[in-house]
C-alpha cells in the first residue's frame, strides 16, 4: 500500500451505491480478491471504494420456475453451498469449485468474478507496456513466447486469456446479467457482456446473474498444471438439451484458451440433431478451430484445445446417459 488517501464507503441501498459510483475515481468493491491485489501493484488507483456487499438487491440466491437469480455480491463459496443450484447447474458449480482457493472463494463475488481483470503478467506489472491497461500501444505478451496468451483471438490487440471460469460456464448456460444504472434496469446476456473486454459501458452495475432452469446436461472442464489454486491452460463448458437421445440444443464455450468466453459454433453445428456418441463427439471436436483466428497458437496448443472440447462433450454425454 502507498500513502494515497482512499475513501471507503459501505452503502446500504442501491440508490446510494449508484450515487457513490458516479463520483470520479470511485470503484465498486466486491470481495477485493483482485482489486486490492491490483492496488498493491499500482495497477488500480481508485479514489474511493464502494463496498456494496450489504445492498439487499445484490444478495441472495432465489429461484422461480424458469430461472435462478444469483446476487452479484453473493460469494463463490455461497453458491457452492447451495445444493440445489449445484445439482441443477453442474457446469456452474464446477467452474466455481475449480477456481482459485478456498480462501478466495470465501471472499470473491459472482459479479467480481465475471468482470475480473486480466491475469496477464504484463497487465499486472506497471513497469511494462500493456495495451489493455494503457488503453493503447503495444502488447508485451505478444512480443515474448513465454507469457501465457490466448490462442483464440479477435481483432483486439490484447491477448490476455479469459481465465475467469464462471463467465465460460455462464455463457454455456445461456445466462444473463441484470444491470442497473440511473436510467434503470437492463438485462443482457453474459456472452454479450464479455464480448468486449473491459468495464460495462455506461457505468452500469451488475445486480444479478440470472441462469435459465432448462432441462439439459452441462459440464465444465479445466486443465491446469496443479490440482489446486491455478488458472487453466484450457477450459471448456458445454450444455446440451437431449430429447429421445438426440441433441436438440447445444452450447459449447471455451475460456482459458481464448480472449473471451467463446462459443464454438462449428462444433455445436456438428453435434446438433445427432445422438451424442463418441463418434459424434470425435468428429465435432475436430471443428474446434474452424472459423477461429488461431494465428498465435502452435499445433500442440491446437490439439490441447481440441482435446479439452472433446473432454467437455464426453462429460456431458456421460451425464446424459446417467
Amino acid at each position, binding site marked *: *500500500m*502507498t*500513502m*494515497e488517501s482512499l475513501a471507503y464507503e459501505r452503502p446500504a441501498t442501491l440508490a446510494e451505491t449508484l450515487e457513490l459510483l458516479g463520483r470520479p475515481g470511485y470503484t465498486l468493491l466486491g470481495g477485493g480478491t483482485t482489486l486490492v491485489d491490483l492496488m498493491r501493484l*499500482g495497477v488500480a488507483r481508485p479514489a474511493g471504494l464502494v463496498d456494496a456487499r450489504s445492498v439487499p438487491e445484490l444478495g441472495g440466491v432465489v429461484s422461480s420456475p424458469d430461472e435462478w437469480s444469483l446476487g452479484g455480491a453473493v460469494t463463490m463459496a455461497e453458491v457452492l453451498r447451495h445444493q440445489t443450484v449445484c445439482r441443477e447447474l453442474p457446469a456452474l458449480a464446477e467452474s466455481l469449485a475449480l477456481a482459485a482457493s478456498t480462501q478466495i472463494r470465501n471472499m470473491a463475488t459472482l459479479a467480481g468474478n465475471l468482470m475480473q481483470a486480466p*491475469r496477464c*503478467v504484463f497487465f499486472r506489472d506497471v*513497469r*511494462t507496456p500493456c495495451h489493455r491497461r494503457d488503453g493503447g500501444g503495444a502488447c508485451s505478451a505478444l*512480443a*515474448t513466447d*513465454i*507469457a501465457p496468451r490466448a490462442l483464440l483471438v479477435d481483432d483486439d490487440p490484447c491477448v490476455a486469456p479469459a481465465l475467469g471460469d464462471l463467465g465460460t460456464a455462464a455463457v454455456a448456460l445461456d445466462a444473463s446479467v441484470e444491470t442497473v444504472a440511473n436510467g434503470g434496469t437492463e438485462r443482457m446476456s453474459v456472452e454479450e457482456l464479455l464480448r468486449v473486454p473491459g468495464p460495462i459501458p455506461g457505468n452500469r452495475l451488475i445486480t444479478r446473474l440470472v441462469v435459465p432452469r432448462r432441462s439439459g446436461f452441462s459440464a465444465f*472442464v479445466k*486443465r491446469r*498444471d*496443479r*490440482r*489446486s*489454486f*491455478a488458472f487453466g*491452460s*484450457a477450459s471448456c463448458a458445454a450444455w446440451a438439451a437431449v430429447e429421445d437421445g438426440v441433441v436438440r440444443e447445444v452450447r459449447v464455450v471455451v475460456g482459458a484458451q481464448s480472449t473471451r468466453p467463446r462459443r464454438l459454433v462449428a462444433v455445436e453445428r456438428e453435434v446438433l440433431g445427432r445422438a451424442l456418441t463418441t463418434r459424434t463427439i470425435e468428429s465435432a471436436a475436430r471443428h474446434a478451430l474452424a472459423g477461429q483466428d488461431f494465428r498465435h497458437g502452435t*499445433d*500442440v*496448443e491446437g*490439439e*490441447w484445445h481440441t*482435446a*479439452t472440447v*472433446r*473432454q467437455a462433450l*464426453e462429460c456431458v454425454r456421460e451425464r446424459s446417459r446417467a
Partner: protein
Amino acid sequence: MTKDVATTTRDWSTTTRAKLTGAAVFGSDVGGGDDLHAVPVLHWGPPGTLRDVDATAALAVPGVRAVLTAEHFADAVGAGTFLYDGGQFHSSFAPLGSREVRFSGQLVALVVAASPEAARSAAALVDIDVAPRPSRATIPVSTHEDALIFERVVDPPSGVSTSGQSTRVTSAYETAPHFHHALEPYAMRAEWVGERLTVHHGSQWVVGEAHGIAQALGVAPECVRVVSAHVGGAFGSRALLMWHVVYVAAAAKMLGHPVRLHVDRSVMATLGSFRPATRQDVELEVGANLELRRYRHHVRVQTSRSDVVPLRGLEYASELYACSSSELRESVVRCDVPTPGFMRAPGEYPVAFALESALDELAHECGADPVELRLRNLSPCDPGRGGGPVHLGWCLERGAELFGWAGRPAPPSSMRDQETGELLGWGMAVAHYPAYGGGVTECQVSMDRRGRVTVELAAHDPGTGLTAAVAAAAARELECSAVEVDVVLGDSDLPLSPMAAGSASTRTAVAAAVDAARKVRRMSASRSDGSTLVATGRHVPPGMTEAGLRDAAAGRFAQASAAVAGEGSPLRLSVGAHFVEVAVDPGRGRIRVRRMVGVFDVGAVLEPRALRSQLEGGMIWGAGHALMEDAALDPRSGRFLGSGLADYHMMAQADVPLLEVEVLGETDPGRVCGSKGAGELGVVGSSAAVTNAIHHATGVRVRHLPVRPAAVIAAYGGV
C-alpha cells in the same frame, strides 16, 4: 503419510511452543514504532549505465527522510568479498557501488521514510534513467561464449577392451531457473547503539554475515551483531550476505536511527539469488554385460556478468557408478542476470536430473531393467562392490521391494489404471549428496540447579530440525527430557557456528553440544552447591586444515571435504533411490504423481521425525521441479516474469502423492555422530524419477524441465 504427528502440548519444546503460538520473533517482528522504513528502488529495464536518478518528486513526499544512491554510499560502504574469493557476499558486484546496471531488477536506490507507506509511495516516484546496452539473459545454444571451469578426463586403462558389443545414448537436457520462495520474505532491521550495529534478519550464516558487514562498513568485526533467532525457510537463499543488508545498515548509521526493510516476494530473486538454468549433454555407453564403459557429461550453467558460481555437481555424481572412462566438463555462461546462488542441492539436482535420465534411456535402449543397470555399476565405495560406506545397492534393492518394482513390465505404455483408464508409469532414479565434513562448531551448555538445560550456539534452524536434534542429544547426555532443554540459536555473539549448508550443520552442532554436555555431566558429579554449571564444547571436523581453522575464526567459509583422508575411500556420499508412479490421463490432459517411495542411506539418524520431514519435503519438491516450477525469464528484457506465488507454481497439498520413506540408519564411523547428512538429499534425482515414470507411462521422453503436459500428450498421440 506421517503417522506420529500427534504430540501433546506437554511435549513442546520452548522453540516449538514459540513457533506454534506465534511468539517466535522473526526479523521483521523486531523494532519500535518510530523506526525508519526503507524501500528498495529497482531498475527494470535492460542493463546499461545509470545516467540519472531523479529523486525530486520522491523527496517531496511527506515523511521521506532520504533517497540514497551510489553517491551517498561512496564513503560509507566499501568493497565486499564474494564467497568464492574468500568472503561472505553473494556477489562481488555492489549494486550501489557505481553507475553500472548489470541486470534487470538491480537495486539503484534506497528510499527511507518515517512510514512504510511513505517510503513505498516515494519509491514509485524515483525517476531512473539508464542508457541501455545490448544484453542476453538466457543460455544460448552456441557455446562460443562459454568458459570452462571444470574438466576431468579419465581415459580407459590400457588392457581394457573397448571393442565388442556396446550400446550408447547421447542426449541433451535442460533445467529451468527456480526461485527459493521461502515463506518468510527478506526482512531486516538495523540499529546502531554507539559504535555497535545489530542486524535482525533471517540468515543461514550469522557469523559470516557479521564479518562481511563489518568489512564493507569498515568497522571491527566485534562491532557487528547479526541475530536470526528463527528462520522462516531458507533453502540456500539466506546462505550468503546480500548487499541490501549492508546498505540498510549504512543508512541507519547515516540517519542516526534504526531502519527496517521489507522485501516484496516478487523482487527477492533480484536482490538475492535464484537457481540458475542449465543445458547439459550426456553420453553413456555400456558393454554387453551392462558394464558402463564411457560417461561423458557436459554441464553449461547460467551465471552473471559479475561472478562465476560453479555448480561442481559432476565430481560427486561421477563417484556413484564405476566407469572406466569418463569426460566431465562444466562451463559457465555469462548472462545479464543477477548472480545465481545456492538452492537445495545446487550442483547435484541438475546434474542428477540429466545423468539419471540418461541412465534410464540407456536401460531402455539395452532392454535392461533400470535398477539392474545401476546395480551392475555400483561404485567401489559400495559394500555391494567390496566394502565401503555408500549403501546404494541396499537402497536400490530395498526401494524396489517396498515399491513392488518386480512387477514392472518393461515396455512403455503397458500399464493402465483399471478404474480410471489412466496410463501408469513407474520410474526410478538415484539420489546422492556428498557427506561434507562440515565446519568448526562451538557451543555452550549450562544446567541450573533445577536441571533446566540451555544450549547456546550461533547455528541456525531454517526448518531442518537442528533444534530438535541438538535438544535430543543434550538430553541424552544429561539424562533429562528434551523438553527440559532450551536451544538458543542464530546470534553471531553466541559460540562460533558455520553456515547452515551442505547437509552438515546439524551433526556438527550435535557434536559440539554433546562435547559441552559431557563436560557439564562430569561437573555435576562433583557439584556441591546449587550453582549453574556451564561448559563449552567444540567440534573440529576431521580433515579441517589449518587454513580452514583460521578462516572459520575470521568468519570465512571453511568446510572439511567429503573425502576422508587416509582411509582409502575417495569420497563419502549420502545416497538414496527414488521410485515413482505417475498416472497420465491423455483424455483429461493430466499428469500426476501418485506414489513416491524413497529409501536413503544417510548414516546415523539424529532425529527421526525431522529427518523424515526433510526427506519427504525434498522428494515432493523435486517432483514439483519436474512438473511445474519455472522462474520464467524473458529472454529479451532479462526480467523474471511472474515471480510472486500466484504465478510461480510449486506443488499444492492436493498434488502431494502417497509418500513412503525408509532410512537405512547405519552409522558411518567416518563421520561425526555417524551421520552423513540428509538436508539436501531428497530433492536430488526425484525429478528424473518422475520423468522416467512419464516415459514408462507414455513412451515420451522429457528432457526439458518443467514437463509440459500438452507436449507429452501430443507426442504420445492424443487420447
